[in-house]
């Protein structure tokens, strides 16, 4: 005999509860809730064929007034009459009951917003002041011609090009040194790791002080009094090549000095994380490989080029992906070091531009368009990366 699908009712109840809330907030037409309630009632009617006590489930129909009831009623039913359930039914019921709280939150705060962001981006200047007009892909058209967007994208590009290789190289070096059974490992690891657990806000405040044009430590160290690191919009390539008589303009002038200062701070901040991850990767490489290589007379460089590098590549790949995605989310450092986005918006990043558009200019639709383009770019880059690199980084240990 078939049994009553209690877990289906439970799931329907969870969705129904979310639906009632959504319709209360005006995200969902009331008709949907009506249909949901109808389906719920039909299921309960079917349940009555399996026994009178299924009428208890009718409590869930009060979800219209108190939404969680739709989910709680089947749970209550299971608590009271669950002893009689068979193994398989129990698994189905408990599985869904345990998954739903987290799943519902994910649906509300992660899945739905992703679609809602796209929906918002199709309107003309959504804010709370007036009803918005539908404008199709107009926002995206404007975005593609927006010089500030390209500026932000260019900065993101430089951020990846500068911080990822530099950070990985430094971190690999430190990790290899730490992996030589060096004494005071914990001490050194702490030194390198502390910046990572330090709040970016506080760290950026300290670096702002170090970069201070008059009294900053860096200017004293480099003997460059008065150099205003964070307010110099000129590109570093242009600055470096100027004495040679080469003039560079636009993108080729490179990231501004202010943005380089931000990148240096970022490398400092994230290095500890990379070191810890790489060290864990290094410790997973069997010692025998190195011993065998030593017997064959391999040099330090040979050992690391031919054993460490290939066997560490999955870890490096992971960190590379993380750095790539992280570049699109750089915000705090920029906000604290250059609160206005720098002179001529030269330290603009995608996240910062999104924040400016959405919460300073209250243009939610345009900001959503920026978010969607960022999303697509990250997706595309990750896919390309997987295609191109993943085949080369998987080695069996």
């Amino acid at each position, binding site marked *: 005999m078939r049994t009553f699908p209690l877990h289906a009712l439970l799931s329907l109840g969870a969705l129904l509860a979310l639906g009632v809330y959504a319709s209360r907030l005006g995200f969902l037409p009331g008709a949907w809730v009506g249909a949901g309630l109808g389906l719920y009632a039909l299921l309960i009617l079917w349940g009555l064929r399996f026994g009178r006590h299924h009428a208890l489930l009718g409590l869930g129909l009060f979800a219209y007034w108190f939404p969680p009831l739709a989910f709680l009623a089947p749970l209550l039913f299971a608590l009271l009459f669950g002893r009689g359930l068979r193994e398989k039914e129990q698994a189905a019921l408990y599985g869904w009951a345990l998954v739903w709280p987290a799943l519902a939150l994910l649906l509300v705060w992660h*899945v739905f917003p992703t679609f*809602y962001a796209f929906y918002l981006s199709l309107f003309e200047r959504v804010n709370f002041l007036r009803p918005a007009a539908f404008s199709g892909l107009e926002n995206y058209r404007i975005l593609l011609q927006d010089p500030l967007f390209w500026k932000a994208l260019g900065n993101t590009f430089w951020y990846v090009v500068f911080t990822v290789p530099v950070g990985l190289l430094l971190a690999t070096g430190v990790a290899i040194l730490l992996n030589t059974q060096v004494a005071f490992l914990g001490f050194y690891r702490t030194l390198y790791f502390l910046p990572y657990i330090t709040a970016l806000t506080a760290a950026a405040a300290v670096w702002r002080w170090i970069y201070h044009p008059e009294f900053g430590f860096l200017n004293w160290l480099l003997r460059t009094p008065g150099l205003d690191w964070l307010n110099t919009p000129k590109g570093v390539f242009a600055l470096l090549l100027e004495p040679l008589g080469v003039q560079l303009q636009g993108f080729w002038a490179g990231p501004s000095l202010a943005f380089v200062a931000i990148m240096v701070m970022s490398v400092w901040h994230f290095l500890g994380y990379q070191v810890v991850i790489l060290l864990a990767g290094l410790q997973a490489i069997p010692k025998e490989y190195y011993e065998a290589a030593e017997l064959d007379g391999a040099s330090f460089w040979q050992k690391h080029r031919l054993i460490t590098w290939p066997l560490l590549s999955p870890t490096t790949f992971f960190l590379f992906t993380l750095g790539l995605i992280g570049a*699109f989310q750089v915000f705090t450092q920029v906000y604290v070091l250059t609160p206005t986005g720098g002179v001529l918006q030269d330290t603009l990043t995608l996240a910062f531009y999104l924040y400016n558009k959405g919460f300073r200019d209250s243009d939610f639709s345009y900001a959503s368009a920026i978010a969607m383009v960022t999303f697509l770019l990250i997706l595309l880059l990750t896919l390309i990366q997987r295609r191109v690199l993943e085949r080369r980084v998987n080695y069996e240990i």
Partner: protein
Amino acid sequence: MRFRPGVLFVHLLLLLGGLVMAFPFYWMLATSLKSPQEALQAKPVWVPERMKPANWLKAARLGDSPLWGGLAPGRSVELVFPGREGHPPRALVPRTPGAFFDPRAEGTRVEVVYRKGAWRVRLTNTTEEAFRFLPLVVLWPKEVPLEAPLPPDAIRSQGEYWRLEWVNAVPGALGYVFHNYLEAWHAAPWGRYFFNSFFTALTQVAVGLFLAALAAFALARIPFPGKEAVFVLILATMMVPGEVLLIPNYVLLARLGWLDTYYALIVPWLASVFGIFLLRQFYLSLPQDLFDAARIDGAGYLTQLFRIALPLSLPGLVSYGIFTFLGAYNALLWPLIVTQSPEMRTVQLGLQAFVSEAGSDYGALMAASTFVILPVILGYFFAQRQFIQGIARSGLK
């Protein structure tokens, strides 16, 4: 074991790098103990006066309590300046700029007498209230060598005199050393900020852990229909970068009327995909026999979860807890967006506001940065192993 010169080289390299990594921390700490004049020097002051133990002893003698100083009504304090008779110094309690009535400037009796080879500046509190801070200015003739009872916070030239300024003539040892900390602490409602941050972060950890544990257990150990679909959905949410969610979640919170409340800070981040994955990994690594045995003894799924899986996955829970706490405590962007009133500010937001308000008072700014990062740093030193493993685990897929 024979001595290898390579080891020395490794230590040298690590130490060099470590110095660079640790320098901003030292600079933060040193600046937080500097007087404004010391901080604003073109040539950096490596060890500020307030860091020198000899000065602590001097400061302990000034004020009612050796630790926190202060001057109760009717009490007096004597500052001794060894010098020659005939060149009398002048002393005054400066008025706070812009103050119409200043109880400290008007209610303090200042006497300057010469006795036993030294000028004595005697300050008496003639008011009804106790002073915690009592600023003092002494004009000292330039031709007499100066030997101050406590290094002045600022020395300026004023005609024939040196103008010696103290921010607090009755500091006590701790009040002297931590003057900037007290100043920063009293400049903003930091207690409230800390409460907000801790409350937000700890709630996120506790509820997030619970929800993630439930979902992860279901995904790892309960065979229920639709499990693969749920898993794929959760995987897919991982692809969405955080900034896509900013705008739609803000709109959602606005519709719920939750802006500027604790809900806004906590609820959207309760369900964590990372946590679910991490714990699922842990549960999968536990031997199936354990669960079978429990099953035979009549344990239901909930008993299996709370009596077997949860206790055995403690390391995973700790990892996830640390990770979530760090993320919540150090976050700036989200609190910046969803809160407006000063009462709802988290410490990072408070610090950010302080950065833009403090102006050139870098001592107080660095003091604020120090106490903002202090809880995490202390936590790290207490639970170093868990921190490192927690972070390293985030790298394992």
